[in-house]
């Protein structure tokens, strides 16, 4: 009897354990996801609909926290600072994102060419800025920009020309964007380069036999094949742009042109901590996060690549 019932019960126990296993493996990630992503999002949403209102009316009214509907969102979007910040973000992004991706793609394609000298050295050197924290990168470039320590100005002054102050005037946007480009090219280059290396070499052989130049091969074969990686790097560059904060904040001591609300995250920080208006900061945070999500989804849809597709 026992010999007959034992195997099924063992199998049953195993099956039950197997049923529970994936949930147990997911448990730590799930708890952390809920605690540090889901709950903060919900809390920000909740706060964004709350605000201080006078209750009771007249001279004896008390300030109370109540539901205020969309007031915070209206306040955020009618604040001239937010629109100006978004405008600066757009200029910054239009310079930084295409330059980062363009340079990364160029370097990756060049590294992938046959008979290129010093490729290992170049690959390592271009990747090094990735190891430099954004704040430190800003410090480095800040001193290279600062007229009193800039090597460019040192040379200009020796030949009798006036130095340039890139931290003031029209050069400020390219100057800030350059820091992001410098920090981002190497990482994106490596991603594109590794996906180029993943293409089997015989794909090119036929084209080479047909007399195609390396330029034709790059343009007609390599770029289309790494398009999914290009979309992904573009997406990360875009998300990174929308949350730029550290670079302009660190540059502030060096230039008077970067205001407290230069980019949206700086404004959110000021609203939350300097002005103590948490509801307004929460509303702007939610709007910024939603905006990023929408832009990402549109980008993925437009490129029609199922970059994150189930395999």
């Amino acid at each position, binding site marked *: 009897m026992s010999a007959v019932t034992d195997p099924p019960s063992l199998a049953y126990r195993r099956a039950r354990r197997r049923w529970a296993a994936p949930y147990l493996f997911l448990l730590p990630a799930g708890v*952390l*996801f809920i605690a540090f992503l889901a709950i903060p*999002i919900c809390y920000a949403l909740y706060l964004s609909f709350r605000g201080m209102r006078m209750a009771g009316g007249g001279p004896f009214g008390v300030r109370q926290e109540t539901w205020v509907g969309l007031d915070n969102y209206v306040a955020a979007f009618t604040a001239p600072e937010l629109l100006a910040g978004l405008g600066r973000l757009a200029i910054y992004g239009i310079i930084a994102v295409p330059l980062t991706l363009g340079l990364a793609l160029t370097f990756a394609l060049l590294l992938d060419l046959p008979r*290129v000298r*010093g490729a290992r050295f170049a690959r390592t050197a271009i990747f090094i800025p990735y*190891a430099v924290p954004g704040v*430190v990168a800003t410090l480095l470039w800040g001193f290279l920009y600062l007229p009193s320590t800039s090597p460019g100005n040192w040379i200009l002054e020796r030949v009798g020309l006036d130095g340039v102050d890139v931290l003031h005037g029209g050069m400020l946007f390219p100057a800030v964007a350059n820091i992001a480009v410098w920090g981002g090219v190497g990482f994106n280059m490596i991603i594109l380069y590794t*996906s180029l290396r993943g293409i089997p070499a015989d794909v090119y052989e036929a084209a080479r036999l047909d007399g195609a130049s390396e330029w034709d091969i790059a343009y007609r074969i390599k770029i289309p094949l790494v398009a999914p990686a290009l979309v992904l790097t573009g997406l990360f560059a875009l998300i990174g742009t929308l949350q730029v904060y550290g670079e302009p904040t660190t540059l502030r001591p060096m230039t008077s042109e970067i205001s407290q609300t230069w980019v949206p995250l700086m404004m959110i920080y000021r609203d939350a901590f300097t002005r103590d208006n948490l509801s307004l900061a*929460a509303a702007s945070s939610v709007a910024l996060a939603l905006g990023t999500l929408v832009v990402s989804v549109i980008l993925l849809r437009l490129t029609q690549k199922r970059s994150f597709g189930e395999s």
Partner: protein
Amino acid sequence: MSTATMSRPAGGRRLVADRPRPRPRGAILPTVVLVLGALYCLVPVVWVLVASTKSSSELFSTFTFLPGSGLVENLGDLFAYGDGQYAQWALNSLVFAGVGAVACTLVSTMAGYALAKYDFPGRQVVFYAILGGVLLPGITLAIPQYLLMSKIGLAGTYWSVLLPCLISPFGIFLARVYAVSAVPTETMEAARIDGANDTRVFVSVALPMMVPGMVTIFLLQFVGIWNNFLLPFIMLSDERMYPLTVGLYTLLSKGSGTPSLYTLAIIGSAVAIIPLVAMMLVLQRYWRLDLISGGLKG
């Protein structure tokens, strides 16, 4: 001597003329572009290393790429600043990045393995939640995270910076991609037939196969936490708990106007990037960044 210099250009010219296409030129232009790119990336690093040897009077007077005489003095000043605050910041960065990246890698690996190797109700929902997390800018969460941390009394502690770093949707995504390609289901089945339970299959079969992917997740997360600025900037108020990024920022913002703090910020930056650059150079060959691009082929 003169015959050698005479014959070489002639021979070279003949060689080029013989070839159907100017191949040497085709390889020279890419090399030049790559060298220019390398210079662009190295110049600021070289500059900070050179500038860190200058005393504060030399900083503004001598040519920027001319080494100075103040390296030892600068290093002494740096580690003496605020009762050795700099060493404390470096230690904090190491703790945040080291502990955070190790724990995050384990959490991500377990979750990615479950998503790749099990079919269970709710898998699709979990997967889309993680994708949403990848697309959501983590930094916009910093302020709500701070508010919640201060509600439960954790704001201003090491935990407030460490705990949010433990969850990385992108790390889970990469672990899933890697588990799909690196852990064969047949091997798992074979271990199960031999009587291994799920924990054992994971620990002694899947985990060793996933090590290269785990190293990549660890390095990405380590660099990410080490470079993080906004989260510790918001969470911490005690200067002794700052990581290097926030510490150097405070140094610089105090330094506007006082050149002696400029020298401190410069030598501080130089010392801060050396260990991380060294780590990257040593561990470069363990990086499996093709994971990121490979995951897209689907």
